Every structure is written in C-alpha cells, then in structure tokens.
C-alpha cells in the first residue's frame, strides 16, 4: 500500500526542514563560539604582545622592574612601583567616593523619587557617562584643580590634624595630586555603577518588598535586608565594572594627577598612573624606554586581572555564606 503522494511530500518536507534546521543551528553555534573565542584571542594577543614588547625590562633585569620605584630614562633604569601605586590609590579613592553616592542615586530613583523625577534624573546620569574623558580632564584642570588648591589648606588644617589619617591630608596646596585625580575619577565612574545598581534594584520582586513593609520595616530596612541581598552579586559586578574603568582611565588622570614618579603618604601630593605614564611618554620613547612603557601596559593587564580575581573570590565567599 502506498502512501498518498501528498503525505509523502509533507514527510519529506519535514525531514528536510529538520536537517536544514540542524545545519542552521550548527552554523549559529559556530558563529557564537567564534565570537566568544575572538574576544579571548584578542585579549590573549594583546597580553602576549605587551609581554613580548616589554621583554627587555621584564626578563632582562629579573624582578627589578616589578620591585623598583626608579624611573630614570637617562640611565634606562625603570620600575613599575610608582605608577602601580598611583593607579591603585586613585582608583581606590574613586571607589570609596563613588560607591556610596551611586548607591544613594540608585536607591533614590528606584524607591524614593516620585515617578516624574525618575526619567530626568536617570537621563542626566546616563549623559554623564557619555562625556568624553578628555572633557573631564580639561574641566579638572581649569575648574576643579584651582578649586582644590583653595580648599586644600583647610583640609590640611582640619583632617590633617587627625591621628592616623592625618598624614594623608598634609602637603602643599597644589590642587593637583592623587586626591584630585581620585575625585575626578569618582565622577567618571559614578554613572556606570549607579546605572547597574538602578537596573538590578528594579528587578527585585515587589512582593518581597511589600511583604517586608507589611511587617513594619522602614525603607532603609527594606533596602538593606531585602533589596541588597537579592541583588548582591549584580551590585558587586557593577562596582567592579566601575573599578575596571578607573584603573584604565588615561586622559582625565593625566591632566590632574601631576605626573611625577612619587610614592607618598599624602594624597595631596602629585603621583602618576600606569596609563598616564604611557600616554605621556610613548611618543618620544625609544629603545629600553619604549620597552619599559609596553611592559607597564602588561603590568596594567596583571593589576586588572588580579583585582577582578579578588572580586570573583569575594563573590564566591558571599555566595557560600548565603547557604548557611
């Protein structure tokens, strides 16, 4: 008994389609895999080429490059300690200032602000993210540095007198320096952190919040005990997104950091960062000097990697504690 031709065709069509689908799926799979691997390959390529470019100072002198705070283009004696110090300190200041403020902004927009205010405030913060860093640099140099040099004597006279932290705020009122750079960086990374926080705060089910309010919680208690634990990993992710940006920021920092290879206890003193050293000196650097700058680029890779690794570990610890 033969099946009617119409049904046969239909069956064949289905067969063909499933074959075609499978082929498309494989193709799509391949494209996705390729895209993901491309990112990895680019990253690895960039890391390896900086390693290769900086081999003269990285391998030629043992650990000297990583442990020395000299930076002497005349003698060709280079060390990465001062730029690494400047990078970490300015980024740390930026985080300390930007995280609480971002948290406040996100909280205000999602929980407290009346509906008509949410749009404009969110838009303003996103606009802040769109300002090119060179503009921040120029604003920093022409507006913020003179302002800082006016208030720094007051900082030294008040905070500088405190025990322990006093040392951080003593120094000449140059207006330039680690603190100024940290504050400018804080303004720059603020929109990134607050955007992420706002987005994830909105994902908290209203049910949970309402229940908590029903049990008599204040707004603060709802935020601290319900919203934050619910969104913790995303919030930390947002903070590290901001940190990553702060570590690599170049132009704005170059303008206000003072560009001097210093390691000081005072935040009012000038310093330098990895990326601003590279931006400053690359043009005229030849031979060992250029190698040292490329090696600095590799060190920035390392620093960013280590910082992100620490973030991951912290996150894992948090998740573990959640189980208990």
């Amino acid at each position, binding site marked *: 008994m033969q099946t009617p031709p119409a049904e046969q065709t239909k069956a064949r069509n289905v067969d063909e389609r499933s074959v075609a689908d499978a082929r498309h799926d494989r193709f799509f799979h391949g494209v996705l895999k390729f895209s993901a691997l491309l990112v990895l390959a680019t990253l690895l390529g960039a890391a390896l080429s900086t390693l290769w470019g900086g081999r003269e100072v990285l391998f030629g002198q043992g650990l000297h490059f990583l442990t020395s705070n000299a930076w002497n*283009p005349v003698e060709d004696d280079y060390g990465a300690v001062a730029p690494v110090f400047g990078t970490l300190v300015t980024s740390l200041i930026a985080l300390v200032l930007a995280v609480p403020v971002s948290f406040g902004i996100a909280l205000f927009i999602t929980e407290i602000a009346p509906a008509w205010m949410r749009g404009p405030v969110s838009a303003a913060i996103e606009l802040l993210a769109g300002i090119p860093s060179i503009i921040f640099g120029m604003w920093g140099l022409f507006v913020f540095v003179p302002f800082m040099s006016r208030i720094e004597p007051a900082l030294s006279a008040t905070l500088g007198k405190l025990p322990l932290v006093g040392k951080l705020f003593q120094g000449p009122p140059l207006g330039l320096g680690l603190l100024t750079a940290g504050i400018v960086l804080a303004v720059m990374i603020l929109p990134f952190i607050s955007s992420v926080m706002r987005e994830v705060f909105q994902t908290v089910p209203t049910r949970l919040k309402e229940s908590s309010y029903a049990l008599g919680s204040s707004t603060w208690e709802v935020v601290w005990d319900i919203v934050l634990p619910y969104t913790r990993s995303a919030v930390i992710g947002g903070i590290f997104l901001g940190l990553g940006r702060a570590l690599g920021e170049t132009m704005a920092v170059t303008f206000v950091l003072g560009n001097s290879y210093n390691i000081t206890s005072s935040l009012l003193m000038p310093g330098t960062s990895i990326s601003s050293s590279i931006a400053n*000196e690359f043009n005229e650097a030849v031979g060992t000097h250029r190698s040292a700058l490329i090696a600095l680029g590799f060190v920035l890779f390392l620093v960013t990697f280590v910082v992100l690794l620490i973030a991951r570990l912290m996150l894992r610890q948090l998740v573990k504690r959640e189980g208990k």
Partner: protein
Amino acid sequence: MLTSTKSRIAMIVAASLFSVAAAQATDITGAGSSFVYPVVTKWSAAYAAKTGNQVNYQSIGSGGGIAQIKAGTVDFGASDMPLDSATLAKFGLGQFPDVIGGIVPAFNVEGVAPGAMVLDGPTLADIYLGKITKWNDPALVKLNPGLKLPDLAITVVHRSDGSGTTFNFSDYLAKVSPEWKAKVGEGTAVQWPAGVGGKGNEGVSQYVRQIKGSIGYVEYAYALQNHIGYALMKNAAGKVVKPTIATFQAAADTADWKDAKDFNLVMTNAPGDTAWPITATSWVIMYKQPKDVAHSKVVFDFFKWSYEHGQEQARSLDYVPLPPSLVKQIEAYWASEYKM
C-alpha cells in the same frame, strides 16, 4: 598707485603661470620633532604656493623621526637631539640645523613682574634639584637685590612628556651644575628630583599660571602668548640677558659650530656676551646617498628656500631664523658631504 597694483597683479599671475609650467611637482615627506612642526608646516604652505612641491611633515616625535629616516620611509627626519658622528657615519646619514627657538624659565610669584627676576644656571639647577625650596632663599635674594621676594614655597613644574624642550633644558642644567649632571643628567625625559609634570608646553604654562610660587620652563612663544612671567638669565659670560630674538640669534652665532663635526653641538650656555643661555635648535637628518635623488634635491631646495625666504614665517611664530654665519657653514656642509 593704480599702475603699481596692476603690475603687481600681472607679476603674480605671471609668476604663478611660470611655476605651474616649470614645476614637475614632487611631494616630499618628513617626520620627527614636534618642536619644528608649526614652522615647517607654515614654510611648506608658502613653499608649495611658490614651487608646487608639497612638503608633508608628520610630527611623531624626535625618536620616531630618527627611526623613520633610518628605515628610509621618509625623505628627511627631524630631531631635537643631534646624532653623534659615529652613528651618522654608520648609517650614511648627515645632519644640519634648521631653525632656532628659545626656552625661558617662567614663574608665578605675586608682586614680581615678568622680566623682573634674574636667575643664573646654578640657582636654576638647585631649584630643580629641590635644594632651593623658598622664593626668599639667599641665593635668589643675592641675584635680585632690588626685589622683594616672598617667603613662599617653590613648586617646580616640568614636562611630563618626552620633549626636545626638556632635552635642551636638562642639557643646560648639566652644563652649569656638576650635581645635576651626576644625579639627573640630560635627555628628552629625565628622572625629576622634584615637582609636578605638565603635558606639553601648554600643560606647563597652565600649571605655572595656576600654582602660586611655581616655576617652569616653556618655549618662548608660549610664555609670550600666555602672558606668564619669564625670568632673565645670567649667561656664560656673566651678563644678564633678556629672552629676545636677538639674544637667541646671538647664541647661535657664538656657539662653537666650527669645531662641531656634523653640527653635533647643543648650543645651550653659549659664550657670547648677549647670548641667551637656553637656546635650542633641531636637526634635519638625511641620507648622504639617498635612494631617491630627485626627492632629496627638493628637500635641499626647501631648506635653502627656508633659510633665505622663510624668516618672516619663522618670526611670526616666535622662532628664530639661523644667523647668516651658520647658514654659510650649512651650505658648505651640503656641498662637501652630500654627493649628488
């Protein structure tokens, strides 16, 4: 009046027709020092209008310029640091100066007018070494007996980027201060014992204007345009001189070019009575036996033209044309060293 205008127009028309007809336009390329970039660009426009030959100059930094000419990818390189004769001989290169510029110490001290302060080399070196830290230091008071100097901390401002300006400035300090020579030395970038770094001439002038009690060093043009207080200097002859085109030229005139093989001489601390002590030049570097002879001929023609006719353009940008005595030596060098 009318006829003279008419005849001038006729002349211009004739000249332009002539140049269009005569010139088999050749485009030459150069790369290097950012110090000469503004003036070379201006010369290039005027030269192109006259001859039809384009000079494309890329300001990629002196180090880059030297690398490019060694690789033979450009027709000429320009560097703020001279190459030594051994290196030149090894690559078959020759070099000669093109234009002069002055570097001036700029300061920001309230109540002290521009040009009122006098500095000398050793004092400037001690300030940059971080040994003199107050404006009323005895060394400064001694140099400026008539001036009321405040009890104000000195903030040293230097360049954060590598530059020919820094090379000439540190070279001068190394010549006048043995301690500077031993501790810091000279180069386009050095290990600064003190102070803050500004990016470019504009960065340094901005910092000097903003920070009270600061001192920096900038190219002459930046000090003029930004109305920063500049200092007078006591030169090698012990005379106090003002930074002007005349004193820059005096430095180039009295510097000992005759004994400097391949013009390998940094003319800071020049001996003349009226010589400004921190005067700088930059060098054009070319192959003695170029791959492309036609291109090299145009390069020589361009610089010959710039020595003879480019003076106005140079002055308008506050550069200083080479003195005639030096131009003569350069032309003799061309004739003897470049065989074409």
